[in-house]
């Protein structure tokens, strides 16, 4: 029998099974409207292994980005702190507080560069002495006003952990180039040329308009800043990642799986086009694109399919649309794959979040990545994770890595009728949505006109409505909440290294730090350079990176520079889109 005859036979047998076996059983259990699914070769009738799946680390990267699983060997992974990295998103209060935190963590054998969380004034381009941002200094991250603050933080990184030996992550978007310039100036003062730096600024400004919200300038001048990154980084900073694209934030903001995939790919396309328009060779800069994470949910198989679809789409976009030749241009470089997403965690009976994150970790390993049990169970309880919750999350990851054998195989669901058909479905839906965005003129236009923002808000509201109608169940939130359920609470037995007292003192301290910088720097030179920045900003084709470096050297503040740019570029109008 050839394939066509075989499919015809399956079709016939399936019909027979549905009528004689499935339906009576479904009726007996009262689920005839939505009987349990079963999938067959009919769901992927034109399946072509080489075209649709391929081998790990090869086009179209459906199975995995790399040919081997990224699990550290037991020798590396099992040593104390082997999985721990300063790379955990962190940063508190004043630069001094953050420096001391990293020093303390180094004693717990943390290694590697920091993953800097910045406070909101820094992310939105305001200085610590601005009255408007009182109460926000040093919250959700460390405050950065000038080069001085980088100098202080990086006192924790010297010797074999100096800035040419570590990779630093900075979660900064609107002001990414200004902070990278400060990092360059810091290295320069240590006698390290910028070409030796390894660093990843988040630098994914478009998703900030859709979700998360740390924009400063309108989308178009923001894209000009992105162009400056592509051009300057490609020429001068071979060790820097240009952007770390995140669909994660869009999903956490409430989008559906398909919207997230479509919007993040459309945003990626806009960035790629910006580089191409600036005359940079696609294969010269795309390998320096990273992805920090896509979103997740408790929908186990759908999330696995999502990851597979995302890898395949990105590969196709690079190869077919942008004509990339290099394999490195086509792969999604992303440290994590499927996970449950922070918005799946619940404040109610918070220890249950450990169970949830383990489900996510298993989805992670089955979708071609490491089994990160993320987030720690106390995520929804407040800012600052407890060390106990982190230990449990790390141990859950280790248990999956070293006890289960799950990491011995890549994409074990490849070829599954169900998962392959789900992968196709998600990809098809995302392409349709991308077409819609493209018909408006692309991601930038779909943000300027509020389309993406509105769609995400609508989806968030629809999900909440489903939860309230109990069409979607969340244990401990809208079901199993009766009085005889135990309210299991968490106990924090180890204090967080960054105490609340320091937190409250940080604002005053940082204002004093900034006042001292402003008193002792060469203010005449700062003023002159800010004037230069203004005229350069007015010339659309001018790359502002060299000026940002000059300004960093002279301890110009973040806000001084952003204010000049606000004057030229304008500020994003805060439409609400509800």
């Amino acid at each position, binding site marked *: 029998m050839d394939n066509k005859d075989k499919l015809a036979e399956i079709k016939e047998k399936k019909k027979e099974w549905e009528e004689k076996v499935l339906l009576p059983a479904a009726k007996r259990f009262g689920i005839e409207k939505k009987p349990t699914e079963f999938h067959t070769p009919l769901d992927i009738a034109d399946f072509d292994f080489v075209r649709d799946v391929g081998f790990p680390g090869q086009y179209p990267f459906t199975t995995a980005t790399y040919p081997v699983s990224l699990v550290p060997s037991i020798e590396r992974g099992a040593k104390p702190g082997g999985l721990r990295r300063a790379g955990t998103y962190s940063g508190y209060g004043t630069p001094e507080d953050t420096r001391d935190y990293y020093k303390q963590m180094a004693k717990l054998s943390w290694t590697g560069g920091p993953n800097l969380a910045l406070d*909101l*004034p820094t*992310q*939105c381009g*305001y200085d610590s002495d601005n009255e*408007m*941002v*009182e*109460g*926000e200094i040093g*919250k*959700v991250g460390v405050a950065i006003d000038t080069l001085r603050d980088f100098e202080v933080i990086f006192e924790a990184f010297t010797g074999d952990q100096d800035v040419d030996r570590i990779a630093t992550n900075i979660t900064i978007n609107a002001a990414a180039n200004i902070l990278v310039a400060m990092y360059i100036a810091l290295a320069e003062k240590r006698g390290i040329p910028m070409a030796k730096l390894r660093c990843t600024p988040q630098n994914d400004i478009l998703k*900030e308009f859709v*979700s*998360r*919200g*740390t924009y400063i300038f309108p989308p178009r001048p923001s894209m000009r800043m992105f162009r400056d990154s592509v051009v300057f980084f490609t020429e001068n900073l071979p060790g820097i990642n240009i952007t770390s694209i995140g669909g994660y934030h869009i999903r*956490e*903001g*409430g989008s559906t799986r398909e919207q997230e995939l479509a919007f993040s790919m459309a945003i990626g396309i806009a960035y790629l086009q910006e580089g191409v328009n600036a005359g940079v060779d696609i294969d010269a800069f795309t390998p320096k694109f990273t992805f920090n994470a896509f979103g997740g949910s408790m929908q186990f198989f759908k999330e696995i399919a999502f990851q597979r679809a995302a890898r395949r789409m990105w590969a196709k976009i690079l190869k077919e649309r942008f004509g990339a030749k290099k394999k490195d241009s086509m792969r999604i470089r992303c440290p994590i794959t499927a996970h449950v997403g922070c*918005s799946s965690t*619940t*404040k*109610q009976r918070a220890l249950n979040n450990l169970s949830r994150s383990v489900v996510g970790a298993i989805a992670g390993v089955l979708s071609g990545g490491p089994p990160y049990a993320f987030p720690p169970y106390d995520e*929804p*309880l*407040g*800012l600052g994770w407890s060390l106990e919750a982190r230990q449990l999350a790390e141990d859950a990851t280790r248990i999956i890595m070293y006890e289960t054998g799950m990491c011995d195989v890549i994409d074990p669901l490849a070829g599954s009728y169900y998962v392959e058909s789900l992968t196709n479905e998600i990809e098809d839906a995302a392409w349709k949505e991308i077409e819609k965005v493209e018909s408006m003129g692309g991601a930038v236009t779909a943000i300027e006109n509020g389309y993406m923002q509105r769609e995400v*808000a609508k989806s*968030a*509201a629809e999900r*909440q*409505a489903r*939860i*309230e109608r109990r069409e979607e169940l*969340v244990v*401990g*939130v*809208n079901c199993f909440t009766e009085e005889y359920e135990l309210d299991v609470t968490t106990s924090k037995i180890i204090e967080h290294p960054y105490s609340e007292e320091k937190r409250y003192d940080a604002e005053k301290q940082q204002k004093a730090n900034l006042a001292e910088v402003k008193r002792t720097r060469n203010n005449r030179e700062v003023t002159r350079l800010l004037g230069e920045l203004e005229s350069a900003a007015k010339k659309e084709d001018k790359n502002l990176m060299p000026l940002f470096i000059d300004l960093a050297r002279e301890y110009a503040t973040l806000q001084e520079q952003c204010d000049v740019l606000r004057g030229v570029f304008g500020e994003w109008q*805060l*439409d*609400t889109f*509800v």
Partner: protein
Amino acid sequence: MEKERKIKVLIAKPGLDGHDRGAKVLSFGLRDQGMEVIYTGRRQSVQQIVNSALQEDVDVVGLSILSGAHLTFFPKVVDLLRENGAEDMLVIGGGIIPENHIPILKEKGVTEIFGPGTMIKDIGDFIRKNVRKIA
């Protein structure tokens, strides 16, 4: 004279926090329950929020914050409303608020704090029960 006037709610995001999912979802949800909802959008100063509340003469001010700056912003909004004679406006808050901060905020005049996982129906019920009497 206007017996059937809808309950009017201002949902506001004070400060720089960009997490607006909760604020938007709540705006949609309360609207579905028949209330009139005004959403300010992100990055509102205390003065802007109070101005909007007074101009619109709302019954309820709902403040949403997930950045940890609630202890600064929430009491400031309450105080400025009181200074402007709007002590009868119901002020409620939501977001990621640590348990031990809830009594502090209530002490300062925030009537209730709603955390993640709260059903909008429950927030609606709370508002209907506690809102100033609508003539």
